[in-house]
């Protein structure tokens, strides 16, 4: 399968099943487009009025050579292994620990319903958290790297338990031959020097929630009195980010129908000194006034292009920024198993509620029919686990002819479920945005590997 597109002055051709990325001239672009449905003679005839015959034949020979080398028009040889996935092991390597089903902000767009996940306010006890960590170790097989995300709600509202759980994990990791990697996701309200110092010592990653410009951020991210949190959190996060040094962090925002010019928010964050950025489309019901609309779509595509071009410029100027969705490592990215096995929700990744119930991921928490078990009994709904094992890209009929399937691996099961009622469906709007982001990310790789060409 081939996907070809033009962006920022480049003609780009992706060979889906080999992962190859080609940059071609105009003739190459046309020859590749005609190649599968025409004979060489037909292609020569078709293009003869615009290109010299010798050039066309030369180009055809380039295409043949790449095809023989397995870098163009490669066949799908991965489909058979995808159906073995039901037999794959039940190893768990990551937990999203909902340490606080409560929040000190009252953001109306929150997919977690202000941290409560449509339930009661709750705080995870140390005992539940410790058992969750033991459960993870017991079920992690030979995996050494174990990921634990302190999530909520707002996890800093249960900070002592977070610290105690980190200490507990550190006390067992050597004996168990494990390496815990912690992530803290926070709205910033309770960040202070002690949080920064602890997080910089213990958290592999920190996710700081900021939506961008003050008026955008304060539109949703307000306290229970309705007061915006921007002025309170920005100085704290600036200090936090600076203190991270080489350690990973992301400033993560959400954009909605009301700020489809979201690059202004990203550039605002860059102006504030943040360099590691993520900005996500809002996940909400289609009838929500802030939901993204069909009319928004071309604007969003334009924004992603603006962002990619500006990031190239910033890098050239020696002031690079990172955008989470444009991070792509063509030479050392995910293996084919990662690319076809789906996001891992419900299998290698589970969410744990404050009272110890297990769900496929944080986005299913609160939906009783997706309860998978608990941290004492383990996964008892094995039928549901088997369903999630097969939520890979080959199990989704809508992905069959999609060029981006080995970049997304089938996408988000929760988004699919909320959009179609089926975890094996697809959230089509999200897919289209994802494809646009991939086109931009790959274009940036092309630009950086061909510095003398157009930008």
């Amino acid at each position, binding site marked *: 399968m081939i996907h070809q597109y033009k962006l920022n002055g480049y003609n780009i051709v992706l060979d889906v099943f080999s992962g190859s990325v080609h940059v071609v001239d105009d003739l190459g672009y046309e020859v590749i487009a005609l190649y599968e449905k025409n004979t060489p003679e037909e292609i020569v005839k078709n293009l003869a009025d615009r290109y010299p015959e010798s050039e066309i034949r030369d180009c055809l020979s380039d295409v043949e050579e790449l095809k023989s080398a397995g*870098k163009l028009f490669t066949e799908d040889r991965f489909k058979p292994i995808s159906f073995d996935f039901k037999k794959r092991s039940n190893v768990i390597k990551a937990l999203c620990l909902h340490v606080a089903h409560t929040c000190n902000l009252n953001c109306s767009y929150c997919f977690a319903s202000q941290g409560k996940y449509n339930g009661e306010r709750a705080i995870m006890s140390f005992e539940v958290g410790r058992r969750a960590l033991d459960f993870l170790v017991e079920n992690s097989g030979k995996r050494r790297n174990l990921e634990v995300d302190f999530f909520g709600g707002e996890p800093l509202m249960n900070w002592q338990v977070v610290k105690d759980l980190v200490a507990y994990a550190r006390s067992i990791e050597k004996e168990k031959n494990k390496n815990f990697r912690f992530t803290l996701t926070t709205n910033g309200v309770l960040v202070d020097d002690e949080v920064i110092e602890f997080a910089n010592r213990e958290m592999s990653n920190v996710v700081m929630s900021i939506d961008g410009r003050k008026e955008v951020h304060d539109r949703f991210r307000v306290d229970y009195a309705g007061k915006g949190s921007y002025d309170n959190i920005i100085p704290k996060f600036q200090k936090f980010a600076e203190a991270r040094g080489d350690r990973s962090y992301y400033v993560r925002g959400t954009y909605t129908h009301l700020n489809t010019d979201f690059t202004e928010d990203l550039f605002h964050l860059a102006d504030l000194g943040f360099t590691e950025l993520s900005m996500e489309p809002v996940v909400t019901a289609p009838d929500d006034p802030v939901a993204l609309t069909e009319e928004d779509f071309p604007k969003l595509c334009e924004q992603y292009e603006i962002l990619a071009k500006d990031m190239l410029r910033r890098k050239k100027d020696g002031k690079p920024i990172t955008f989470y969705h444009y991070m792509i490592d*063509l030479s050392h990215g*995910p293996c084919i198993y990662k*690319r076809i*096995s789906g996001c891992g929700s419900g299998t290698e990744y589970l969410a744990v509620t404050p009272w110890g119930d297990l769900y496929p991921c944080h*986005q299913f928490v609160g939906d009783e029919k997706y309860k998978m078990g608990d941290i004492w009994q383990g996964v008892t709904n094995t039928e549901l686990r088997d369903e999630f094992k097969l939520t890979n890209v080959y199990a989704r009929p809508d992905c069959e002819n999609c060029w981006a399937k080995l970049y997304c691996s089938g996408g988000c099961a929760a988004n699919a479920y909320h959009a179609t009622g089926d975890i094996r469906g697809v959230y089509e709007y999200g897919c289209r945005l994802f494809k646009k982001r991939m086109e931009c990310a790959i274009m940036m790789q092309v630009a950086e590997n061909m510095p003398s060409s157009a930008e």
Partner: protein
Amino acid sequence: MKHIITLDTREMNEANGGCGECQTSCQSACKTSCGVANQKCENTAE
């Protein structure tokens, strides 16, 4: 090649089975719209 430049990309080799040491897709920053393209391989044996 005169008409086509090919970037260096990782070989899609189905023989190794995958070691699973990499980060879970949704873990790091998005939480709502994951993919795998931006994940790094953490296979230390490779």
